[in-house]
């Protein structure tokens, strides 16, 4: 499978309310990430905006509907459209989540948790092989956040991800917030989780906000909390030249607020690099 080169940049998600900023202004980001499905359309404004954004910024594709953990395999029409978009856009890389979204009959439009069993690992690896073959490129898969764990799990989530990357040659998108959320919800150590991952396969990092509670919910609707920042600060020097991005999907603030958060990430990266040196 193809190699994905590192891209040591800091970026933001491309959201509608910021279209004008990115098309008309000079925004201090190294790359933008799109939600792939929003642009897997025949034409119109979304594709027009994206073509103009692409002239100004490198773009990473991040999907939510591949359903790589689906027992019923992959949706051929979806893959064809994803490939068409990737061929047209020439992105830095194409990512999705380690999760499942649908059965053969219905789509939940949510990132549902997988059982971490050898059977599920076999299915996921077969699906990743097929997806990477169909895309003609290696892909990144993001560690999920989850609110319940299947009884009968045979391995830890990070062991599942490490085995998946080893068997398929895929790369990883490390969502630090998801590690924080799931560590709280399932009672594991976030540090153990990250230490158990093959970090040399990480090409991108997500930072985001969540809703606290007895069960923490991954809402992406607020600023990044101190706990997530602390976790990122602890691991940033271990992530090499992975690209880092702030992921906000709801209650989207003015761009300046997200750029200020990106400055914090930049400062932490630089501090981490100094410590490592």
């Amino acid at each position: 499978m193809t190699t994905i080169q590192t891209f040591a940049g800091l970026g933001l998600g491309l959201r509608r309310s910021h279209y004008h900023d990115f098309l008309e202004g000079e925004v201090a980001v190294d790359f933008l990430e799109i939600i792939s499905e929003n642009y897997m359309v025949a034409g119109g404004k979304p594709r027009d905006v994206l073509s103009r954004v692409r002239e100004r910024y490198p773009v990473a594709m991040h999907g939510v509907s591949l359903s790589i953990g689906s027992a019923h395999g992959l949706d051929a029409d979806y893959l064809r459209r994803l490939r068409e978009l990737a061929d047209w856009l020439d992105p830095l890389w194409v990512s999705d989540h380690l999760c499942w979204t649908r059965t053969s009959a219905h789509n939940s439009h949510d990132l549902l948790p997988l059982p971490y069993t050898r059977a599920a690992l076999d299915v996921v690896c077969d699906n990743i092989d097929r997806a990477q073959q169909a895309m003609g490129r290696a892909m990144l898969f993001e560690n999920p956040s989850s609110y319940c764990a299947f009884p009968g799990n045979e391995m830890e989530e990070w062991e599942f991800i490490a085995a998946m990357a080893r068997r398929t040659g895929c790369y990883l998108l490390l969502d630090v917030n998801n590690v924080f959320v799931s560590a709280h919800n399932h009672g594991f150590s976030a540090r153990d989780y990250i230490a158990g991952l093959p970090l040399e396969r990480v090409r991108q990092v997500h930072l985001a906000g969540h809703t606290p509670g007895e069960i923490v919910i991954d809402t992406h609707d607020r600023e990044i909390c101190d706990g997530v920042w602390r976790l990122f600060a602890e691991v940033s020097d271990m992530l090499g030249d992975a690209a880092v991005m702030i992921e906000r999907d709801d209650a989207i603030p003015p761009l300046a607020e997200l750029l200020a958060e990106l400055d914090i990430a930049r400062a932490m990266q630089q501090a981490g690099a100094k410590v490592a040196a």
Partner: protein
Amino acid sequence: MSAQAELAAQQAEFMAHVMADALALPSGWNARFASGLDIYRNAYRTRLVEALRDTFPRTVQWVGDEAFAAAAAHHLITTPPSSWTLDHAGLGFPEVLGELFANDPEVPELAWLEWAMHTAFVAADAAPLTRERFVAATAGFAGEDWAEMRLIFQPAVQTCSVAHDIAKLWNALKQDEAVGDYTLAQPGGLVVWREGLSPVFRMADRTDAEALALLQSGASYGEACSLLADRLGPEEAAALAGSLLGQWLADGLLVGVSV
């Protein structure tokens, strides 16, 4: 049991609990698991109802939030989502509204317009056929070529027969001034298309919408003229056919012609 079958069984069970209330938890699923499952179940409903609200804002405004939410929940149960994109959640929803609001037939017509505008927004791009290009394309036509001519419309074009002045209702809702009865004196039509990147619509005469729909289905210009002749007589039909063609060209609905 194969890996695929084992996982398929787990996912089918999990999905059933996401989509429905009050199913007994299988053995091994404890209260903590049930709490987590509640979050997925609530998110599923909220996300889909919100997607419908975003796609049909004027319908929400017209029928009221509570009635819309009930209709959306009904749609979700009777037509659970199967497409890979949430953008398709509204497919079939105007028809569902037609059943639920049988005494308010303007509701499905308004929803049809919102759905048509939604889909036109992301329809394939196509350069409109200018009047000059149309003249050039048809310059060599012999008499029978006109009857055999097929019109090629931009992919965003959609038509619908309506019994209400949906344009007037649409604009009144925009001004938050919608009240009363919008029934048309004569049945009419709606035409949706895209001007550049912007979806647009206009009310149309019934014959305009029906002729356009017939031509879109692949019928020839001659067959559309026959439809008009059946309704209006040959002389008036010929004049109207030319007038409609001019209107469609001026609107930018056409992208080409073929014989």
